[in-house]
């Protein structure tokens, strides 16, 4: 009878009347809700302003966009365009330490590489997926392929992000799991695995309930977890955002959001405190704390505090007039700032990944239509970034010392695999894999763990 019921259910729903063409309405409602949420709770690393229009513009025309013809202003310092890149050569510019492919993520979730520990083991995650409802983790030796399965953490089906993968412990953070119900936030949760004791411990802090998103949380040099808690929100202009050429709201030149910086012990759940510092985006670089006045809009000034001496300096990073700061990464006395700076002409975006030193010197800005995700790797000597245009899409590496822009791939996977911290000269990236998929371009993705060859 169960089989009969299955047939009946399929039969009863097999002849639907024509669906109304409601996707435009979905998009309108979705954009409106995103804007409302943006004015609500947005973590520093989950910066959304200005990125809404990217794909619908960049995917239409496979030719590289002409930024000059569109009247896009040039950034303050040295500038590089994606068209100036050359293909990276494996074995010369980089080497793959290992790769891992999920051929069909369209059918189900799979296995993921969530980072590399300081002693060179991959944090391998299996699930959550239909045959593995709750994720399990292993430390995988890339030399032998051997997996050391860890005790299962009590994390439900939460999405997890690695924020520290040291020889002593693994620290993952997860958001509240309000999911569809948009229910009350359970707050930010940290899951700490002690590698010596082989035990997981989960910590949550009532004081950090408003910081319900894990994005932007960082482990500081003192081993504490630093969390941005929303403080002020940039205002939406009277009458809403102006509409760009494609009918999209263009929120370039937005007011920034600010956050109160809190920190929490990862060993004592009762030890949590307000650091009495209001920030926009922030990151640590050795014993320095680097932050901006605001983010997800205007950046304001960049501040650098020596945590040993308390000495503090600040400078104007000279973002463009209309630039929204969307991403922030600091390493090796350099700062990478991903920005959206407006849409021009027939829909050409001014996207930038700007690198400055912690002294305020302009290093380079990669400027193009559809580029973001700037991340400093190899101790800040190299910059990885992602491009989304059809002609220029893929993963790139910029050699800051050598002034070379290298293109690792010609496409970036729609599936977010191969993301997480990596020590030394290692870095993670991905490319599409599997069969052609109508929805996602390719049904799967291949994660690469690669090493920069200097």
């Amino acid at each position, binding site marked *: 009878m169960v089989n009969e019921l299955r047939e009946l259910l399929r039969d009863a729903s097999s002849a639907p009347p024509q669906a109304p063409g409601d996707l435009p309405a979905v998009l309108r409602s979705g954009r409106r809700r995103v804007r409302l949420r943006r004015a609500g709770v947005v973590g520093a690393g989950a910066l959304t302003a200005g990125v809404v229009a990217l794909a619908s513009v960049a995917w239409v025309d496979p030719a590289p966009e002409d930024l000059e013809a569109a009247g896009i202003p040039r950034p303050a310092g040295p500038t590089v365009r994606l068209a100036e890149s050359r293909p990276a050569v494996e074995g010369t510019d980089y080497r793959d330490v290992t790769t891992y492919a999920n051929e069909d993520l369209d059918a189900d979730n799979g296995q993921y590489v969530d980072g590399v520990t300081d002693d060179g083991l991959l944090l391998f995650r299996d699930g*959550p997926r239909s045959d593995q409802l709750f994720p399990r983790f292993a430390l995988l030796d890339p030399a032998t392929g051997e997996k050391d399965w860890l005790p299962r953490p009590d994390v439900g089906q939460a999405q997890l992000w690695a924020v520290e993968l040291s020889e002593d412990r693994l620290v993952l953070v997860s958001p509240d799991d309000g999911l*569809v119900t948009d229910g009350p936030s359970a707050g930010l949760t940290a899951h700490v695995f002690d590698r010596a004791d082989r035990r997981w411990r989960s910590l949550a802090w009532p004081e950090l309930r408003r910081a319900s998103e894990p994005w932007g949380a960082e482990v500081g040099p003192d081993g504490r977890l630093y969390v941005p808690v929303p403080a002020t929100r940039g205002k939406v202009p009277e009458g809403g955002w102006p509409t760009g050429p494609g009918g999209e709201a263009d929120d370039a030149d937005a007011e920034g959001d600010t956050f109160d910086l809190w920190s929490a012990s990862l060993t004592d759940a009762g030890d949590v405190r307000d650091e009495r510092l209001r920030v926009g985006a922030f990151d640590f670089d050795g014993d320095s704390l680097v932050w901006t006045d605001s983010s997800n809009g205007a950046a304001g000034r960049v501040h650098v505090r020596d945590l040993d001496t308390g000495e503090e300096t600040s400078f104007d990073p000279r973002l463009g007039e209309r630039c929204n700061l969307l991403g922030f990464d600091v390493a090796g006395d350099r700062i990478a700032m991903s920005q959206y700076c407006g849409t021009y002409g027939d829909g050409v975006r001014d996207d930038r990944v700007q690198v400055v030193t912690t002294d305020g010197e302009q290093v380079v800005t990669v400027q193009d239509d559809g580029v973001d995700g700037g991340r400093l790797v190899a101790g800040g000597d190299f910059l990885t970034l992602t491009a989304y245009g059809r002609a220029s899409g893929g993963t790139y590496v910029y050699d800051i010392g050598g002034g070379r822009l290298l293109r690792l791939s010609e496409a970036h996977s729609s599936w977010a695999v191969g993301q997480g911290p990596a020590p030394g000269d290692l870095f993670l990236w991905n490319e599409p894999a599997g069969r052609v998929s109508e929805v996602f371009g390719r049904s799967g993705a291949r994660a690469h763990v690669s090493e920069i060859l200097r």
Partner: protein
Amino acid sequence: MRDEAAFVEFAASARERLRRTAYLMCGDWDRASDFVQEGLVRVYVRWPRLVRNGGELAYARKAVVSAYLDHARRRSSTERPTEPDPALASAEDVATAVVDRQTLMAALAGLPPRQRACVVLRYFEDLSVAETAALLRCTEGTVKSQTSRALFSLRSVLEDSPSGEQAEGAVSW
């Protein structure tokens, strides 16, 4: 990164399947479209995070079911339908018609919303008990008991119909 083109492709491709699921739960194609639309809006809002881990379809299904259950909760406290729904089979239909669409939809319509969701998710979406529990945010035991009650009710309706004899080798409910 909000990849709107990818979202549009996903929504266009998943919409019909989601609409069928919603229809089986609510029994009305127009309302099913509304639930799917609300579900897809929720997917849009969460899209960057979904793409990060490849859980788009599962989340979309969850969003649609949630939209339906939210509506059912509101409806149960604010609306009292007084007229019979002409799209549903009458008692006479059930007694005389073979097991067909209307009979099934009438039987489903007689179930409480969560029981209906359990049946649709278990036997149309082919989700396991654990997956259904995860989606409905309840225990596996609740899914089993809700499904069991739903099947008991459905069996009493469907087996009363002329074509309701148990098929040879069919799995017992």
